[in-house]
């Protein structure tokens, strides 16, 4: 057998394979790479010492093996395995076997028997463990086959009694991965086996080795993950594991308890040492809470995280987590929170604390105080005070999740969250602010809490401040003093950090919207109007004044009595602001005033429909234009494009769709224009000039199609086809133009070939979509394919030209949700007249701050481009950490760009802009392709389509004034 295989392997060395493609009649010669298996065999035979053999194996492992030669390699390896005496070499071979069985397209069932056989003769525990690991790999590849699974399970159970922890570990893992799941299999034998599996694993919860215990719990969790319902009886076993000596066991046990609590929340368990019984989920909650004060922080993090997802827990248990009964010298003491609340409700402000203000009050019954409660007492109090910030963050997250589901809990945890605003680690502060924002619907801030919240506005970190603004946008404030306080603090913030302007205005907008009745009594004071005297008109450009106005105008929207309190100049300012800051100032109904704004429609919803309809109609019209003459077609297209663009500007919700369709129409327009050129009718050499236009059009269409494909989020496959089709047309156009303008046929050969390849790949990619493309360019082209392939380039070009001209215009189906990626550079603002001076040859750091919207995966796609006046460009790839994600679909880029240049005589402007990089191999179509046609690998298609990289500018360039000075030389 082995001899035969060897022979086969040697044959492969120089085998020439002829492959035929059905579609393309052209035959190709391809050389397959010589199989590596042969080389391996030779190497292994040469190896004189185990160390040498190990080296060969290591080298071998570095390169991938083709699916078809895997089996051969495996046989060779096994053969060596039997001969080998050194355990380390056997170990490596065993691991290689596992690696090889992972190879895509290779079915490992043929080697399973061999591996199981080798198990029987193996003495070394390490090699045994590795072999079991290999079996695990094989098993995971063959999960559908119940016979294989049963067999492997048997093997695993057999080796469970091994004395080495590694082997037992692997066995448990195997059982976890392969233990039968399907209950509906109805075969009794199988359900029995399923039971057994849990029992077998459960028995190992008491193993002497902590690693095996951990593996047992993990295997159990694995079973759960695969859908096997765990039995409730494990619960008591798992509870015992919570007090294990080893942290990894405890950590896994916490997980297991959590899983069980989710499976059987309502079943009843007894409380040890008493006759009472409680719900299992409550009991589990108490136990996990207990783990929040575990000795190991890994366990603490785990426990704190899981607490958040236990939403079925009863409310009094939940509220205990925030309760820590204080006492001092055995007398009950109120917490600071309680005192604050009392002060507040008694209506007096904190007069400053006296010594003994917190003096303990009532005596406590010594018997009743339970210092280590088995319940959930104070779990979050502990978690939030933990030394490790990981635990604190996890606790805050858990608080957030629990508070979202329970209003009463949300109110209770507020004090604690507010306290977290003063944490020493910024991440924790930020996280707690975000949490607060998420639960803000459930809560109303008391004044003293608001006070603490607002104190954070002075934080020097921009992220914190902005998060806080976001929070204030959606908080409920209870009193008008609260609003006033918030406004005062925000204005303070504004003077301290003027860059926060936009964010503060936005924040005040929402504050106004939410609390019109609270703002109303403040209006005279805020506008400093006086019943008798005229007050001076405030400065219109003062950001603070604008902030106040934003608050008032937004409140006035729902409070019709408010405008009566405005003075004349307020109305003027309203008109001005409504125009200049329309996103912040809402339309108001001002009685008796003539204002710029047209009558405001009472509701906004019917507004959308006409524009949507308009969009649809105009597109319909365009798609029906086959029968018009070229001239009017062009005109119609131009108008429609103009309409669409305007529509996009007016209706922000439709902007994506409108832009997308406009771009597509523009491509079409360009194509039509290019085909209208006279050049086609005249002999080629005479019209060298015009063809510049045609080829430019082709180029532009290509660019636009890339934009369409990569700049919009939400593009579906249907659109991708159309886009690719358009690109194909552009390529055809390019080919024709080149054919017309270049002399000689030589370059055409290559181009034609390329083009045909592309048509072919197009067909492969979108085979399912082809039926929808009746009468299109590609449809016709595919009909003509046989002719094209055989004909000479010049003829082919002719055919192409006619098809291109005859083909109809494909309708672009509109996607559901489409958004154009946009970017706005906030910083640098590009207004400065002071050049940034630096010594030439050195670098200067330029802070760039931009908001990105609807960019997918900005970390890898967004780049910063710097364009120097001399035409030199520089492309900077920002660090992934520079991107923040303040909300869905939004990103914030805050980075530094390093500039450098040689000396200039005078300051000049450079341009900074953001680019969206794309790589066509990343596009959806080609990933699909590479998946479906993995077997015939990349070699089948020369990779020209794939991996075209480029960039699309998607922000307005910003000019920065810089001045590299010549380096001054010190006089020597």
């Amino acid at each position, binding site marked *: 057998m082995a001899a035969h295989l060897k022979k086969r392997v040697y044959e492969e060395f120089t085998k020439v394979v002829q492959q035929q493609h059905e579609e393309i009649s052209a035959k190709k010669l391809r050389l397959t790479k010589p199989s590596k298996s042969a080389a391996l065999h030779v190497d292994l035979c040469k190896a004189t010492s185990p160390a040498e053999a190990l080296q060969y194996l290591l080298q071998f492992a570095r390169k991938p093996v083709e699916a078809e030669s895997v089996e051969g390699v495996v046989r060779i390896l096994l053969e060596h395995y039997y001969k080998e005496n050194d355990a380390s070499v056997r170990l490596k071979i065993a691991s290689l076997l596992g690696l090889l069985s992972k190879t895509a397209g290779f079915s490992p069932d043929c080697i399973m028997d061999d591996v199981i056989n080798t198990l029987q003769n193996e003495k070394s525990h390490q090699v045994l463990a590795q072999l079991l690991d290999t079996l695990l790999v094989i098993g995971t590849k063959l999960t559908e086959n119940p016979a294989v699974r049963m067999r492997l399970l048997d093997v695993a159970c057999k080796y469970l009694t091994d004395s080495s922890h590694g082997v037992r570990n692997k066995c448990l893992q195997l059982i976890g991965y392969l233990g039968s799941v399907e209950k509906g299999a109805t075969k009794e034998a199988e359900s029995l086996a399923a039971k057994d599996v849990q029992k077998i694993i459960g028995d190992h919860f008491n193993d002497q080795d902590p690693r095996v215990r951990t593996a047992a719990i993990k295997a159990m969790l694995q079973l759960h993950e695969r859908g096997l319902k765990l039995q409730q009886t494990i619960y008591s076993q798992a509870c015992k594991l919570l007090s294990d000596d080893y942290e990894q066991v405890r950590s896994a046990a916490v997980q297991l308890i959590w899983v069980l609590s989710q499976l059987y929340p309502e079943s009843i368990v007894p409380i040890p040492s008493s006759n009472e019984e409680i719900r299992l989920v409550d009991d589990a909650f108490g136990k996990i809470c207990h783990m929040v004060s575990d000795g190991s922080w890994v366990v603490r993090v785990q426990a704190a995280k899981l607490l958040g997802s236990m939403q079925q827990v009863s409310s009094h248990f939940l509220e205990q987590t925030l309760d820590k009964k204080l006492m001092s010298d055995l007398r009950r003491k109120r917490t600071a929170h309680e005192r604050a609340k009392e002060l507040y409700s008694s209506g007096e402000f904190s007069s400053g604390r006296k010594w003994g203000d917190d003096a303990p009050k009532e005596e406590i019954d010594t018997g009743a105080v339970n210092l280590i409660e088995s319940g959930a007492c*104070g779990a979050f109090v502990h978690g939030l*005070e933990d030394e490790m910030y990981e635990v604190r963050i996890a606790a805050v997250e858990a608080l957030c999740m629990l508070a979202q589901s329970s209003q009463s809990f949300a109110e209770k945890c507020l004090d604690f969250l507010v306290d977290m605003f*003063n944490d020493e680690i910024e991440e924790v502060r930020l996280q707690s602010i975000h949490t607060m924002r998420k639960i803000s619907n459930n809560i109303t801030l008391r004044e003293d809490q608001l006070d603490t919240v607002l104190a954070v506005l002075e934080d020097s970190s921009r992220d914190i401040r902005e998060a806080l603004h976001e929070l204030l946008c959606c908080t409920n404030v209870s009193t008008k003093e609260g609003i006033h306080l918030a406004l005062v603090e925000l204005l303070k913030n504004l003077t301290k950090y003027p860059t926060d302007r936009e964010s503060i205005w936005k924040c005040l907008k929402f504050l106004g919207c939410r609390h019109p009745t609270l703002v109303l009594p403040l209006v005279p004071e805020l506008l400093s109007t006086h019943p008798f005297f005229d007050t001076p008109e405030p400065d219109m450009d003062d950001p603070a004044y604008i902030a106040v106005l934003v608050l008032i105008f937004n409140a006035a929207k729902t409070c019709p009595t408010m405008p009566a309190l405005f003075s004349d100049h307020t109305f003027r300012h309203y008109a001005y602001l409504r125009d200049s800051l329309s996103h912040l100032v809402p339309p108001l109904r001002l009685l008796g005033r003539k204002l710029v704004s047209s009558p405001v429609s009472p509701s906004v919803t019917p507004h959308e429909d006409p524009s949507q309809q308009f969009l649809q109609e105009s597109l319909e019209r365009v798609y029906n234009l086959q029968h018009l003459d070229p001239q009017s077609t062009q005109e119609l297209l131009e108008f429609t494009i103009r309409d669409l663009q305007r529509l996009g500007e007016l209706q922000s919700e439709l902007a994506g769709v409108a832009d997308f369709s406009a771009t597509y129409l523009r491509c079409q327009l360009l194509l039509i224009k290019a085909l209208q050129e006279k050049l086609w009718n005249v002999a080629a050499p005479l019209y060298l000039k015009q063809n510049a236009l045609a080829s430019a059009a082709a180029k532009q269409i290509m660019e636009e199609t890339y934009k369409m494909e990569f700049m919009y989020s939400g593009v579906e496959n249907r659109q991708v086809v159309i886009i690719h089709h358009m690109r194909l047309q552009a390529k055809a156009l390019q080919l024709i133009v080149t054919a017309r303008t270049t002399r000689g046929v030589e370059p055409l050969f290559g181009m034609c070939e390329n083009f045909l390849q592309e048509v072919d790949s197009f067909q492969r990619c979108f085979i399912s979509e082809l039926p929808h493309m009746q009468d299109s360019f590609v449809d016709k082209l595919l009909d003509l394919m046989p002719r094209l392939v055989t004909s000479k380039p010049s003829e082919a070009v002719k055919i192409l030209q006619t098809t291109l001209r005859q083909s109809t215009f494909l309708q672009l189906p509109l996607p559901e949700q489409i958004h154009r990626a946009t970017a706005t550079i906030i910083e640098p603002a590009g207004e400065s007249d002071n050049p940034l001076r630096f010594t030439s040859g050195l670098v200067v750091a330029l802070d760039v701050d931009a908001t990105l919207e609807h960019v997918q995966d900005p970390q890898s796609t967004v780049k910063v481009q710097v364009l120097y006046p001399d035409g030199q460009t520089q492309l900077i790839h920002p660090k992934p950490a520079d991107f923040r994600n303040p909300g869905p679909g939004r990103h914030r880029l805050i980075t530094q760009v390093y500039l450098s240049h040689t000396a200039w005589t005078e300051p000049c402007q450079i341009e900074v802009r953001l680019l969206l990089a794309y790589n066509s191999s990343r596009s959806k179509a080609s990933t699909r392709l590479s998946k479906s046609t993995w077997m015939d690998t990349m070699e089948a298609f020369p990779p020209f389509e794939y991996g075209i990289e480029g960039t699309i500018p998607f922000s307005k360039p910003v000019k920065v004034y810089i001045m590299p000075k010549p380096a001054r030389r010190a006089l020597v």
Partner: protein
Amino acid sequence: MPEIKVTPLGAGQDVGRSCILVSIAGKNVMLDCGMHMGYNDDRRFPDFSYITQNGRLTDFLDCVIISHFHLDHCGALPYFSEMVGYDGPIYMTHPTKAICPILLEDYRKITVDKKGETNFFTSQMIKDCMKKVVAVHLHQTVQVDDELEIKAYYAGHVLGAAMFQIKVGSESVVYTGDYNMTPDRHLGAAWIDKCRPDLLISESTYATTIRDSKRCRERDFLKKVHESVERGGKVLIPVFALGRAQELCILLETFWERMNLKAPIYFSMGLTEKANHYYKLFITWTNQKIRKTFVQRNMFEFKHIKAFDRAFADNPGPMVVFATPGMLHAGQSLQIFRKWAGNEKNMVIMPGYCVQGTVGHKILSGQRKLEMEGRQILEVKMQVEYMSFSAHADAKGIMQLIRQAEPRNVLLVHGEAKKMEFLKQKIEQEFYVNCYMPANGETTTLFTSPNIPVDISLGLLKRERAIGLVPDSKKPKLMHGTLIMKDNSFRLVSPEQALKELGLGEHQLRFTCRVHIQDPRKEHEMVLRVYNHLKGVLKDYSVQHLPDGSIMVESILIQATAQSEDQGTKVLLVSWTYQDEELGSYLTSLLKKGLPQTTA
């Protein structure tokens, strides 16, 4: 019965002059060597004559361990080592070793220079004493001698505070010193592994208190300072030089940084400055935040906090000043207080407890007019605030530590008797362990049952294990072997090896037993019956019928002979060696029951 004896010389049902003697497995260890703040006579130091009347201390004590640098834990050290005389090793952590002499020197200065006492230890004595100190790292196991080993655990409380595990063989004691289970701005929380000591000696300062979350306190403190500074007022914070002062500094420093505040913060020079230097050095002893960020910036390199000069007190504008001492009874803090007391914009924040009679105590209890020296009346218009920042574990924290360490016994020290009583009851109730609280000079004895390790040869272990079925963890298991006690070590070896080692010949011990059986049949028939019977009963053993008419069950021989006088009675000779005793006696009892009456 092995026992552990604990005698507190100080800190037994009391706070101050911590000094605890522990004898464990013949080793004597002294834990801490502190002074008492409340006394100025002989009572301020522990009574070392208790240890030995006339012999040298060095002969009696194996080592001394100092948990941290507070004077009530190390104040008597130079007196003990230089004046009473002790030359053995003294163990403490590195930061303690660095800071301890500064505090001792300060203490000496105050007692000798200010109070004019004589017969007190000198600077040189402090130096000599420190030469005897061996510094240890966290979690480092130090072998004091062949048997005694100690290991330090992190305790929070102050920089360099440690809990110590003292271990001899399998007996161990953990002494906590002072510790804190909740982290603060500069130190982490105490941590110990599940070392299951025989005895845990824990402090119990806050035995009956459960504290509020520290965040409220911090926030209150910051808010007060901030408000006052914004009003343009001056804030005075009287502190002790070490410990809380650093925490408050970090608190204010980070707050200033975060809020971009500009008002200056001053710190009185001298002792604190020196100490800050050490805080900068021992970054590994601080909390997670400081450890993580020190590469960018050492948190103790204060940006906003500058050294204070006397003249600054009169500067206009807001400022914050940390000044010593903490109770406003003398020194710089009192001077500044007198200057600022008259302005209601100013504020004084007392961050700790004040002893009765001090200015601090007076103003805290609400007195607004103070009589100063020279009959001067000082009217206090400034705001007076009290903030409690303390770094001891509260009742919950103590329970948490006990839960972590899982000791078999607990002993409480460093606390008030009444409060201890409560905690003791709680501990006994919730952990089911004994809890003790001896007074000073009272000895507590507790008995231990230490494990005795025995070496076993691998061959024997494997052989014996192979006999049993599945190895079951954590269950006691019966083994056969020979225990050799030689040169203070125990070994379990196989009998053959034992014989060989001892140079003895092997003796066979054989039991032979006669069993009378009434059976009229012929001998060989009966033998056959016996054979069949045994074969039926002993399925797991090999039963052979030998050609010479005897039966072998494993290695047990059974022969049958006919009694000469009575043909109806046959005698079965059962013979087995000592090793097969179990099976042999079983066989005889089986045979004595007689053979089953079969008709065949």
